[in-house]
Protein backbone atom coordinates (compact mmCIF):
# COMPACT_ATOMS: atom_id res chain seq x y z
CA UNK A 1 0.00 0.00 0.00
CA UNK A 2 1.22 3.47 -0.89
CA UNK A 3 -0.09 6.88 0.05
CA UNK A 4 0.57 9.86 -2.16
CA UNK A 5 1.77 12.50 0.29
CA UNK A 6 1.02 15.94 -1.19
CA UNK A 7 4.51 17.07 -0.12
CA UNK A 8 6.61 13.94 -0.61
CA UNK A 9 4.92 11.99 -3.41
CA UNK A 10 4.12 8.27 -3.34
CA UNK A 11 5.34 6.72 -0.10
CA UNK A 12 5.27 3.28 1.42
CA UNK A 13 2.67 2.61 4.13
CA UNK A 14 5.50 1.91 6.60
CA UNK A 15 6.45 5.59 6.66
CA UNK A 16 3.03 6.47 8.12
CA UNK A 17 1.29 6.25 11.45
CA UNK A 18 -2.44 5.52 11.29
CA UNK A 19 -4.51 7.58 13.69
CA UNK A 20 -8.19 6.93 12.93
CA UNK A 21 -11.33 8.56 11.64
CA UNK A 22 -11.35 12.14 10.41
CA UNK A 23 -13.91 12.71 13.17
CA UNK A 24 -10.91 13.73 15.25
CA UNK A 25 -10.72 16.93 13.17
CA UNK A 26 -14.11 18.06 14.48
CA UNK A 27 -13.45 18.67 18.12
CA UNK A 28 -16.51 19.91 20.06
CA UNK A 29 -16.34 23.48 21.28
CA UNK A 30 -15.63 24.25 24.88
CA UNK A 31 -18.77 23.69 26.95
CA UNK A 32 -20.29 21.23 24.45
CA UNK A 33 -22.72 18.67 25.84
CA UNK A 34 -21.29 15.39 27.18
CA UNK A 35 -23.02 13.55 24.32
CA UNK A 36 -21.02 15.60 21.79
CA UNK A 37 -17.79 14.62 23.52
CA UNK A 38 -18.88 11.01 23.72
CA UNK A 39 -19.60 11.01 19.98
CA UNK A 40 -16.29 12.72 19.21
CA UNK A 41 -14.24 10.31 21.26
CA UNK A 42 -16.06 7.03 20.79
CA UNK A 43 -18.76 6.93 18.12
CA UNK A 44 -17.53 5.82 14.70
CA UNK A 45 -19.11 4.66 11.48
CA UNK A 46 -17.72 1.48 10.00
CA UNK A 47 -18.43 1.94 6.32
CA UNK A 48 -18.14 -0.76 3.68
CA UNK A 49 -17.00 1.70 1.05
CA UNK A 50 -15.57 5.19 1.12
CA UNK A 51 -14.07 6.33 4.41
CA UNK A 52 -11.85 9.21 5.48
CA UNK A 53 -9.18 8.88 8.09
CA UNK A 54 -6.08 10.55 9.43
CA UNK A 55 -2.55 9.41 8.74
CA UNK A 56 0.65 10.98 9.99
CA UNK A 57 3.71 11.02 7.72
CA UNK A 58 5.84 10.30 10.73
CA UNK A 59 8.89 8.97 8.89
CA UNK A 60 8.70 11.63 6.21
CA UNK A 61 7.63 15.28 6.27
CA UNK A 62 5.79 15.07 9.62
CA UNK A 63 2.51 16.22 8.07
CA UNK A 64 -0.97 15.05 8.97
CA UNK A 65 -2.95 13.79 6.00
CA UNK A 66 -6.63 13.11 5.46
CA UNK A 67 -6.87 10.02 3.30
CA UNK A 68 -10.05 9.13 1.42
CA UNK A 69 -10.10 5.44 0.62
CA UNK A 70 -12.45 2.62 -0.22
CA UNK A 71 -12.51 -0.19 2.32
CA UNK A 72 -13.98 -2.60 -0.23
CA UNK A 73 -11.51 -2.05 -3.07
CA UNK A 74 -8.53 -0.63 -1.10
CA UNK A 75 -8.49 2.20 -3.61
CA UNK A 76 -6.94 5.46 -2.39
CA UNK A 77 -9.18 8.24 -3.69
CA UNK A 78 -7.53 11.35 -2.23
CA UNK A 79 -4.76 12.46 0.10
CA UNK A 80 -4.90 15.99 1.48
CA UNK A 81 -2.89 17.97 3.99
CA UNK A 82 -4.87 18.58 7.18
CA UNK A 83 -3.08 21.95 7.43
CA UNK A 84 -4.62 22.96 4.08
CA UNK A 85 -8.08 21.76 5.12
CA UNK A 86 -7.90 23.76 8.32
CA UNK A 87 -6.63 26.84 6.48
CA UNK A 88 -9.53 26.61 4.02
CA UNK A 89 -11.98 26.15 6.88
CA UNK A 90 -10.79 29.28 8.67
CA UNK A 91 -10.26 31.42 5.54
Amino acid at each position, binding site marked *: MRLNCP*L*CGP*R*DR*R*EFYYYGSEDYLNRPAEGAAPQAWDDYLHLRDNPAGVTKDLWYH*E*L*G*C*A*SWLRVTRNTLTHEILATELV*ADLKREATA
Partner: protein
Amino acid sequence: MTRTGPGRMFDASHMPQSALGGAVFDGFARVQEIGPLGMISLRCALDHPACPAAVQAAVGLGLPAQRRIIMDGQRAVGWMSPDELLLILPYADAAAALQRIAAALDGVHHLAVDVSDARAVFRITGPRADQVLTKLCPVDLAALAPDELRRTRAAQVAAAFWREGDGYTLVSFRSVAGYVMGLLSHSAQRGSELG
Protein backbone atom coordinates in the same frame (compact mmCIF):
# COMPACT_ATOMS: atom_id res chain seq x y z
CA MET B 1 43.26 13.36 32.98
CA THR B 2 45.68 16.27 33.02
CA ARG B 3 45.58 19.12 35.48
CA THR B 4 45.54 22.30 33.42
CA GLY B 5 45.24 24.92 36.11
CA PRO B 6 44.31 25.48 39.74
CA GLY B 7 41.17 23.50 40.43
CA ARG B 8 40.61 22.77 36.76
CA MET B 9 40.78 19.35 35.25
CA PHE B 10 41.08 18.49 31.62
CA ASP B 11 38.79 15.57 30.97
CA ALA B 12 38.81 13.94 27.54
CA SER B 13 35.14 13.02 27.95
CA HIS B 14 34.33 16.69 27.49
CA MET B 15 35.65 16.57 23.96
CA PRO B 16 32.98 15.94 21.31
CA GLN B 17 32.67 12.23 20.62
CA SER B 18 30.91 10.74 17.64
CA ALA B 19 28.39 8.04 18.44
CA LEU B 20 30.54 5.03 17.58
CA GLY B 21 34.07 6.45 17.51
CA GLY B 22 34.33 6.25 13.72
CA ALA B 23 33.35 2.60 13.33
CA VAL B 24 34.03 1.13 9.88
CA PHE B 25 32.72 -1.92 8.06
CA ASP B 26 34.15 -3.00 4.73
CA GLY B 27 31.76 -5.19 2.78
CA PHE B 28 30.66 -4.94 -0.84
CA ALA B 29 30.27 -1.29 0.12
CA ARG B 30 32.03 0.64 2.84
CA VAL B 31 30.10 1.81 5.88
CA GLN B 32 31.66 4.43 8.13
CA GLU B 33 30.31 6.27 11.10
CA ILE B 34 31.56 9.85 10.87
CA GLY B 35 31.36 13.00 12.87
CA PRO B 36 30.70 14.59 15.11
CA LEU B 37 29.04 17.09 12.79
CA GLY B 38 27.44 20.30 13.88
CA MET B 39 23.70 20.14 13.33
CA ILE B 40 21.03 22.71 14.05
CA SER B 41 17.33 22.05 13.81
CA LEU B 42 15.63 25.27 12.74
CA ARG B 43 11.86 25.42 12.89
CA CYS B 44 9.98 28.46 11.64
CA ALA B 45 7.68 29.52 8.82
CA LEU B 46 10.05 28.96 5.91
CA ASP B 47 8.24 31.62 3.88
CA HIS B 48 8.84 34.27 6.54
CA PRO B 49 10.94 37.08 5.00
CA ALA B 50 13.50 36.81 7.83
CA CYS B 51 14.13 33.10 7.31
CA PRO B 52 16.57 33.27 4.38
CA ALA B 53 18.72 35.81 6.19
CA ALA B 54 18.88 33.59 9.27
CA VAL B 55 20.03 30.60 7.23
CA GLN B 56 22.51 32.76 5.35
CA ALA B 57 23.88 34.08 8.63
CA ALA B 58 24.18 30.59 10.09
CA VAL B 59 25.75 28.62 7.23
CA GLY B 60 26.13 31.05 4.32
CA LEU B 61 23.67 29.21 2.10
CA GLY B 62 20.25 29.86 0.59
CA LEU B 63 16.98 28.06 1.29
CA PRO B 64 16.56 24.62 -0.25
CA ALA B 65 13.46 23.75 -2.24
CA GLN B 66 11.01 21.20 -0.88
CA ARG B 67 12.75 17.85 -0.19
CA ARG B 68 16.11 19.21 -1.33
CA ILE B 69 19.49 19.81 0.27
CA ILE B 70 22.03 22.48 -0.63
CA MET B 71 25.62 21.49 0.10
CA ASP B 72 28.83 23.48 0.03
CA GLY B 73 31.86 21.82 1.56
CA GLN B 74 31.30 21.29 5.27
CA ARG B 75 28.04 23.21 5.27
CA ALA B 76 24.59 22.20 4.14
CA VAL B 77 20.92 23.09 4.50
CA GLY B 78 18.25 20.45 4.07
CA TRP B 79 14.46 20.70 3.85
CA MET B 80 13.00 18.43 6.53
CA SER B 81 9.34 19.46 6.61
CA PRO B 82 7.21 22.51 5.76
CA ASP B 83 8.49 24.23 8.90
CA GLU B 84 11.86 22.61 9.54
CA LEU B 85 15.36 22.90 8.14
CA LEU B 86 18.44 20.91 9.07
CA LEU B 87 21.59 23.01 9.11
CA ILE B 88 24.92 21.18 8.95
CA LEU B 89 28.21 22.86 9.80
CA PRO B 90 31.48 22.16 11.61
CA TYR B 91 30.78 20.99 15.16
CA ALA B 92 32.67 23.88 16.76
CA ASP B 93 30.65 26.47 14.82
CA ALA B 94 27.19 25.48 16.06
CA ALA B 95 27.06 27.74 19.11
CA ALA B 96 28.04 30.87 17.18
CA ALA B 97 25.60 30.00 14.40
CA LEU B 98 22.79 29.73 16.96
CA GLN B 99 23.58 33.24 18.15
CA ARG B 100 23.44 34.56 14.59
CA ILE B 101 20.09 32.82 14.03
CA ALA B 102 18.70 34.29 17.24
CA ALA B 103 19.75 37.76 16.08
CA ALA B 104 18.32 37.32 12.58
CA LEU B 105 15.01 35.94 13.90
CA ASP B 106 14.65 38.29 16.85
CA GLY B 107 10.91 38.71 17.42
CA VAL B 108 10.01 36.01 14.89
CA HIS B 109 8.35 32.85 16.20
CA HIS B 110 10.96 30.14 15.76
CA LEU B 111 12.91 27.34 17.41
CA ALA B 112 16.62 26.75 16.83
CA VAL B 113 18.35 23.94 18.68
CA ASP B 114 21.82 22.44 18.56
CA VAL B 115 21.09 18.76 17.89
CA SER B 116 24.70 17.81 17.06
CA ASP B 117 24.94 15.38 19.97
CA ALA B 118 21.48 13.91 19.29
CA ARG B 119 22.46 12.48 15.92
CA ALA B 120 24.70 9.87 14.39
CA VAL B 121 26.02 10.21 10.83
CA PHE B 122 27.13 7.48 8.45
CA ARG B 123 28.75 7.34 5.04
CA ILE B 124 27.89 4.46 2.71
CA THR B 125 30.25 4.46 -0.23
CA GLY B 126 31.31 2.46 -3.24
CA PRO B 127 29.76 1.53 -6.59
CA ARG B 128 27.10 -0.62 -4.92
CA ALA B 129 26.27 1.73 -2.04
CA ASP B 130 22.69 2.03 -3.29
CA GLN B 131 22.13 -1.68 -2.65
CA VAL B 132 22.88 -1.26 1.04
CA LEU B 133 20.03 1.25 1.37
CA THR B 134 17.68 -0.51 -1.04
CA LYS B 135 17.57 -3.50 1.30
CA LEU B 136 16.72 -1.38 4.34
CA CYS B 137 14.54 1.49 3.13
CA PRO B 138 11.25 1.61 1.17
CA VAL B 139 12.78 3.99 -1.37
CA ASP B 140 13.08 3.90 -5.14
CA LEU B 141 16.65 5.17 -5.35
CA ALA B 142 16.48 5.36 -9.14
CA ALA B 143 13.86 8.08 -8.70
CA LEU B 144 15.88 10.00 -6.09
CA ALA B 145 16.99 13.41 -7.37
CA PRO B 146 20.74 14.11 -7.07
CA ASP B 147 20.13 16.80 -4.45
CA GLU B 148 17.18 15.19 -2.72
CA LEU B 149 17.10 14.81 1.05
CA ARG B 150 15.14 11.65 1.65
CA ARG B 151 13.47 11.12 5.01
CA THR B 152 12.29 7.58 5.53
CA ARG B 153 12.91 4.59 7.74
CA ALA B 154 15.83 2.18 7.85
CA ALA B 155 14.29 -1.08 9.07
CA GLN B 156 12.73 -0.04 12.41
CA VAL B 157 14.07 3.49 12.88
CA ALA B 158 13.84 6.94 11.34
CA ALA B 159 16.59 7.97 8.95
CA ALA B 160 17.41 10.68 6.44
CA PHE B 161 19.92 10.43 3.64
CA TRP B 162 21.18 12.10 0.51
CA ARG B 163 23.67 11.43 -2.24
CA GLU B 164 27.12 12.86 -1.60
CA GLY B 165 30.41 12.11 -3.32
CA ASP B 166 30.75 8.43 -4.19
CA GLY B 167 27.83 7.32 -2.05
CA TYR B 168 25.34 8.44 0.54
CA THR B 169 25.34 10.28 3.84
CA LEU B 170 22.77 8.98 6.33
CA VAL B 171 21.64 10.55 9.58
CA SER B 172 19.87 8.76 12.42
CA PHE B 173 19.17 9.42 16.06
CA ARG B 174 22.27 8.84 18.16
CA SER B 175 20.36 6.60 20.56
CA VAL B 176 20.04 4.00 17.78
CA ALA B 177 23.52 4.46 16.27
CA GLY B 178 24.61 0.94 17.15
CA TYR B 179 21.47 -0.53 15.65
CA VAL B 180 21.92 1.47 12.43
CA MET B 181 25.59 0.51 12.16
CA GLY B 182 24.51 -3.12 12.55
CA LEU B 183 21.84 -2.75 9.89
CA LEU B 184 24.15 -1.09 7.38
CA SER B 185 26.97 -3.56 8.00
CA HIS B 186 24.68 -6.57 7.68
CA SER B 187 23.18 -5.16 4.50
CA ALA B 188 26.68 -4.58 3.06
CA GLN B 189 27.96 -8.10 3.75
CA ARG B 190 29.95 -9.60 0.94
CA GLY B 191 27.97 -12.26 -0.87
CA SER B 192 24.67 -10.44 -0.32
CA GLU B 193 24.95 -8.19 -3.37
CA LEU B 194 21.74 -7.80 -5.34
CA GLY B 195 21.48 -9.02 -8.92
